[in-house]
């Protein structure tokens, strides 16, 4: 059965649910809007959390990611098999920082999962007025929403009504991205080619972000082989009308939230507000 969940409900309950899965306050607080955004944009994200609970919980305990500057504008982040809800936002921060300082940058993340958050992550960069491009491929065993593309190139363009998204799955779309990026940032040419090469490999998840501080990118890219996807409009509608979520998944979210609720006792009840002391 499907129920309508409010976006702010997902954020409120989901933030605590992420704590229940083992994430610290700051990580949960930052990660849950991405979960809510992705749920609104393409659905079944909470389901994915439910089905991957064991690995998600385990990832919260893994060591912190390691970052390395591969060139002046390119970062490599070893995610140590952590979920993108935790390491994705900081990766976008590195992307933003590099793009604002140098005009362009790239961040490659290895050893991670949760690729269904890629459009949500790109959205943040675009709201920061950075053109965000993601080239990703998910491993065969990566759990994700039905219909979520297992490999693609996504472009998120800053726009006043919310980021505009182009999604490409063909060589032509990859060619268009490579041409547009290297027009602005020739130094990223090798990195783009490496990202494209990884799309053809089987094995672990691969994810490359590219960021450009370029107001003319939408004119620069040949978007003939891309699909325009209205993610931003879906999110706006979700705020207005709610998000259809499977009852089982919403119940799961509430149940995980309750793991953060302490058992009751006479002492606990005395620590509530009512009563003299």
């Amino acid at each position, binding site marked *: 059965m499907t129920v*309508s969940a409010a976006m*702010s409900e997902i954020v409120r309950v989901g933030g605590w649910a992420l704590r229940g899965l083992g994430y610290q306050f700051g990580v949960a607080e930052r990660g849950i809007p991405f979960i809510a955004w992705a749920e609104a944009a393409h659905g079944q994200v909470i389901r994915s959390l439910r089905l991957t609970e064991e690995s998600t919980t385990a990832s919260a305990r893994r060591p912190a990611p390691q*970052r390395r500057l591969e060139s002046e504008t390119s970062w490599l982040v070893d995610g140590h098999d952590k979920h993108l809800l935790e390491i994705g936002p900081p990766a976008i*921060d590195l992307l*933003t920082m590099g793009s604002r300082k140098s005009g362009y940058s790239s961040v490659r993340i290895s050893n991670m999962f949760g690729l269904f958050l890629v459009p949500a992550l790109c959205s943040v960069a675009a709201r920061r007025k950075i053109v965000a491009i993601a080239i990703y491929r998910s491993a065969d065993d990566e759990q994700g929403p039905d219909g979520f593309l297992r490999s693609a190139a996504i472009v998120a363009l800053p726009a006043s009504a919310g980021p505009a998204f182009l999604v490409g799955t063909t060589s032509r779309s990859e060619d268009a991205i490579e041409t547009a990026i290297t027009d602005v940032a020739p130094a990223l040419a090798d990195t783009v080619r490496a990202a494209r090469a990884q799309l053809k490999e089987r094995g672990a998840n691969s994810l490359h972000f590219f960021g450009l501080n370029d107001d003319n990118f939408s004119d620069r890219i040949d978007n003939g082989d891309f699909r325009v996807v209205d993610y931003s409009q879906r999110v706006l509608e979700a705020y207005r009308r709610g998000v259809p979520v499977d009852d089982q998944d919403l119940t799961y979210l509430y149940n995980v939230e309750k793991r953060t*609720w302490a058992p*009751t006792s006479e002492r606990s009840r005395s620590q509530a507000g009512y009563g003299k002391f």
Partner: protein
Amino acid sequence: MWLPAPLKAILESFVGIEGSRDVLDRLRDPGEIMNGPRMGAMKSMRMSFAQLLARRMIDERWAIKRQWFECDEEGDGRGFYIIEAGEFVLSYVVRCFRWDGIEKVGRRSDGVKRDMFGAIFLGIPDESRIAREFASIEGTDVDSMRTEADVTGWTPASRSARFFDHVVDSLVAGVQPDPAILSAGAGYLLRNGGYLGSGRQGSVSIAGLPDGHPFRHPYFGDLFGLVMVRQVSIDLVNAIAAARNPRAAKLAPDIARNLGVGNSSGQGMCVALQRWPEWVATWMAVRELALAFATSRPIDDASTLRLSGLLDRAVAYFSSIELPCEDYVVPAKTLSCNLAQIKAMLGTGGRTWGEFADRVDSAYDAETAEQLNSLLVEVYPDFADAISAYIQTGAIRDRDLTPEMSVGELRDILRRNYDWALRYDMRQSKTRQHFWYHSIDNGEQRRGERIIDPHEEFESFIDHIGLIQRLACVLISYDDAISVAEVVADEPDLSYGIARVQYLANDAYAEIRDNLIHRDFLPAHLIRFFLGILGIESTSPLSIRYVRGVFFQGLPLPEELAAGCDDDWKFQIFDESRDKLRGSAA
């Protein structure tokens, strides 16, 4: 002191650039006022949310029209209202339950045990939709009760048993209830059970409301829910009385008007204040600017007359009320006496209201001083109303990180804005004694002791001093030239703290400069502050972490709103009702 651009523009439009400097010089030092005890002494002001909502309802002549209301002798029944709220239409369904004889104080742990449940709709739903909503709110399992995105929120409420029965019994007997009894009970029949909106249980998210909708304003949805609860309380007693005796009296308007909605708030409010510091920063900026403006004005005959009238009303009001507990407050009668003495000080010298306020501040307790401050703001309503518009916009902040900021720049902000937190000595265990947690009793927020009580790992965020100190320590381990993006990449958990420091960098009144987890911290201070912001005139802590008060006593009734009325309904008292009743038939 830095002022947000919209407030600066309004100030300069009133007094010019030169005059602005005089006003800004009067802004109070955050180091002196942003602490629990002082904030707890602050009073409801013209720009408190209940007053703002009421002004909008009065200015736009909102029409609250009861379409039907039916109940039996025990109050089991339903009702439906249509509300014309300016250019928007709302509707309200209410389900009243037969009273089960159990007084419910309105705690979250009570779950769905309420005596009434209402739902506010956007627009007017059809009959099948209304039926669906009634089916939801008649549920008994709080976990499965859900609504849809055409509902802004639910309004659970419970009876104040003793006074409810007195009113019904009086009306059944054909007479009006005794205002003295009602005022002894603080003047309400139904008690707020906590507005369930902003996405709770599937209601619409605030961001999903149409542009310009009144409920996009902070707390307008919640508070309008209380306006409807108040209306239902009036209609319910009338309907029960009529069901018991077709010749029963109806509640007189002068008594009905002085009924409000009871409210009790707990320590969860402290968590909300800490979680959303930009709200506190905005509210305080507006309040303090209004006060600085008022205290910069010269004392003249017109302003003296206005303040004198307000003091008279405040004296009478505080003299008339009886608080259930005065352990943690300045007693109402003392406040009344103090304000009477202050009135006698009028005309005894001083060039500006600031000089007058300073005399009061040095001679009286903080609550008395803050009550005077609240009245001084009332003396200059045009300015207060003009800057009130910032309350809605200022509270909506982009809480995003600025990733390219350097560690050195961030440390500069910490030194400039958080020296009070960095120097706070947290070594002794009493400084870290408490933590806030949610209980399995419907998620009620409680306060435990570290080491002794479980679930510390799931504590609600409230320790901003600890966060700032940790952030400062981590930053020292980085070169000043490193970007905060790199710090966050290594320590994702710190993104919240870094963003908080960054986006509050220019807000003078951003942080509560108190240690909320200290053994000796009294949550009641901040609960009183929050309730004053929301618009309760007189709050009464029943314990160190639980505060009661009444909303909307004196608010014009629907027929008065629709016909047009004065927006001054402050400090209404039941004695006036008694006097008017003596001259009128029941």
